[in-house]
């Protein structure tokens, strides 16, 4: 295991998710390995189709059929949770793992007041009476920064703005003092100025409560200022894992390196952005060997033949052959990478 004294709260090992189709199963996740330690914020970053949201859904048992877990293990707090029944998973969700989705509107029931939804969730997962639950609901709304919380209990979700709704969703996720929150693109639907507020709330609360967070997003900026550690996903696998500063400034995997470079920043104005040619392979068309090989500037025949496992890179671990002792023996690729649009 990639070191660290703190015990892994969530440990995902070689997780495979497939979608059965008439042309045979489509592999959506090809063996995801990641872990979240107690109280830590793990950023899971990747481009659309990399499998980051599917990973989150698979962990909490919310995969939509016919997609299903085809292999691997999910351990939470020392117990294996991937084979659990719907009821058992439901008890874990909410009580011990909170969930925040991208669109706050779909996470809230439009027919019930905010107060009802909060107290309902609190009483489902905690042994509290009606008054105590309501008191806790007000506390929670207060904590997530909703002004005049007590008076907003009777409001319906549509009476809140997008940013306020996402605050309510965070309050809902925190209801039962979970150990882990899985946040899937929590700020993507929001404007930048609101994004900052929501990220701030999330960070502060998790720090105060000691809650670990698995923050799934495509936005490296959000990861950079929120996460302790980053797992970079590509074509259904984690291809780099390291502290946020190292991944941003000194990525080991050529994909992460290219990804960080291609983000425009306001720090420096340059003529051309460094770009990675081509696009991520579609699900079902992932090449054998390293999935990044067709786009890699430094590809060798070894990369096309065999899939690399995680190895110790510069300061992070990365699934790239150049950190293997076999790299120096590997012949440079014949023909180089295909140059496509």
């Amino acid at each position, binding site marked *: 295991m990639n070191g660290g004294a703190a015990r892994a709260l969530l440990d995902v090992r070689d997780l495979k998710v497939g979608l059965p189709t008439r042309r045979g199963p489509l592999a959506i996740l090809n063996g995801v390995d990641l872990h979240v330690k107690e109280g830590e914020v793990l950023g899971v970053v990747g*481009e*659309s189709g990399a499998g980051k949201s599917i990973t989150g859904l698979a962990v909490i048992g919310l995969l939509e059929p016919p997609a299903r877990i085809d292999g691997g293990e999910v351990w939470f707090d020392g117990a294996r949770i991937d084979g659990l029944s719907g009821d058992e998973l439901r008890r874990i969700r909410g009580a011990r793992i909170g969930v925040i989705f991208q669109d706050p509107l779909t996470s809230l029931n439009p027919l019930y007041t905010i107060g009802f939804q909060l107290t309902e969730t609190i009483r489902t997962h905690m042994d509290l009476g009606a008054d105590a639950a309501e008191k806790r609901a007000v506390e929670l709304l207060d904590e997530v920064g909703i002004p005049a919380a007590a008076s907003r209990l009777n409001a319906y979700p549509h009476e809140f*703005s*997008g*940013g*306020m709704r996402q605050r309510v969703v965070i309050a809902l996720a925190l209801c039962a003092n979970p150990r882990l929150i899985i946040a899937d693109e929590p700020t993507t639907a929001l*404007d*930048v*100025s*609101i*994004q*900052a*507020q929501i*990220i*701030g709330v999330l*960070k502060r609360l998790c720090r105060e409560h000691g809650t670990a967070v698995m923050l799934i997003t*495509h*936005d*490296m*900026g*959000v990861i*950079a*200022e*929120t996460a302790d550690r980053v797992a970079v996903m590509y074509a259904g696998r984690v291809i780099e894992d390291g502290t*946020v*500063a190292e991944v*941003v400034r000194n990525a080991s995997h050529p994909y992460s390196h*290219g*990804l*960080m*470079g*291609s*983000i*425009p*920043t*306001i*720090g*420096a*104005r*340059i*003529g*051309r*952005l*460094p*770009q*990675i*040619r081509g*696009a*991520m392979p*579609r699900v079902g068309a992932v090449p054998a060997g390293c999935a990044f090989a067709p786009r890699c500037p430094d590809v060798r025949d070894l990369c096309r033949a065999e899939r690399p496992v995680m190895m110790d890179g510069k300061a992070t671990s990365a699934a790239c052959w150049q950190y293997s002792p076999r790299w120096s023996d590997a012949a440079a690729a014949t023909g180089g990478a295909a140059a496509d*649009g």
Partner: protein
Amino acid sequence: MADTPLLQVEDLAVHFRLPLPVAERAMGRRPKVLKAVDGVSFAIGKGVTLSVVGESGCGKSTVARLIAGLYRPTRGRVAIDGHDVTAARDRTRAIRRRLTMIFQDPQASLNPRWRVRDIIAEPIRAFGIAGDARETSRQVDGLLEQVGLAGADGEKYPHEFSGGQRQRISIARALASKPDLILCDEPTSALDVSVQAQILNLMRDLQDELGLTYLFISHDLAVVHHMSDRIAVMYLGRFVEVAEAAALFAAPQHPYTRLLLETIPDLGMTKRDREAVAGEVPSPIDPPGGCAFHPRCPHADERCRTERPDLRPSQSGAGGGAVACHAVEEGRLPPAPSGEAADG
């Protein structure tokens, strides 16, 4: 004339009347008016990129659509190379040819039932640019190659391409009529960052090669910073600040611009606590009186609440900047937190 700007917009505004339920109309209630764009003026010279930046609902996309002729303006004037094209009948074929548009969603901006070849050929045919079918086909091949696709890709349908490739097809279509001005409505917002870099690079290469002028609409300040010569910051239907790109990032004047700059998530700011600014964008249906930003502004006073500031040239801003802020005008704003964001 040499100093005629390619695109000139004066006091452009569009007000949408929101439909009322029949019952309320019967009670004599007047329909609410959404002032999506409320008096915007600017000019873009040839070969320049002007970006309009703002949060969702501020009216930036509507500005592009007004210039494209997709909405009829409530008031104001749009001129292209000195020709007034505010009225639809003044949009001659010769003028239409010179202005095209790239849209945000590469999925919805290409007709799914058309082959890529026909999609790109549509403007060529509409403007009679190619003499015959063979010439059309030759031009389409050339355009596909120009945006980094292969001629054979023309035989395929849009769904066979990835998002980035679809946006390339969109760009090829926009180039087909050999335009001078391209209105880019959030062209990379729906794309992944690595693909975004490809598209942004392509757009800049094309600009250098063809001398294109861009009106670039975006909510992403980092992208805007990368692409623009000049930047206009928009809030609730009006420009609050216009400045040269470098000046805007080095010394933002308007409090809203400062807020936006402050909230950019940036790679360089690892584990930094962003300054969370209170409040959210108010509804454009009932915007606050006076300066629309005053409820969120830490420097607002009585004048800001009652009197709407106009866009005035700023004294301190170099390079023809303009700000609509009483506090800036009166000099009671603390100096901009300059340098922090724009060194390097």
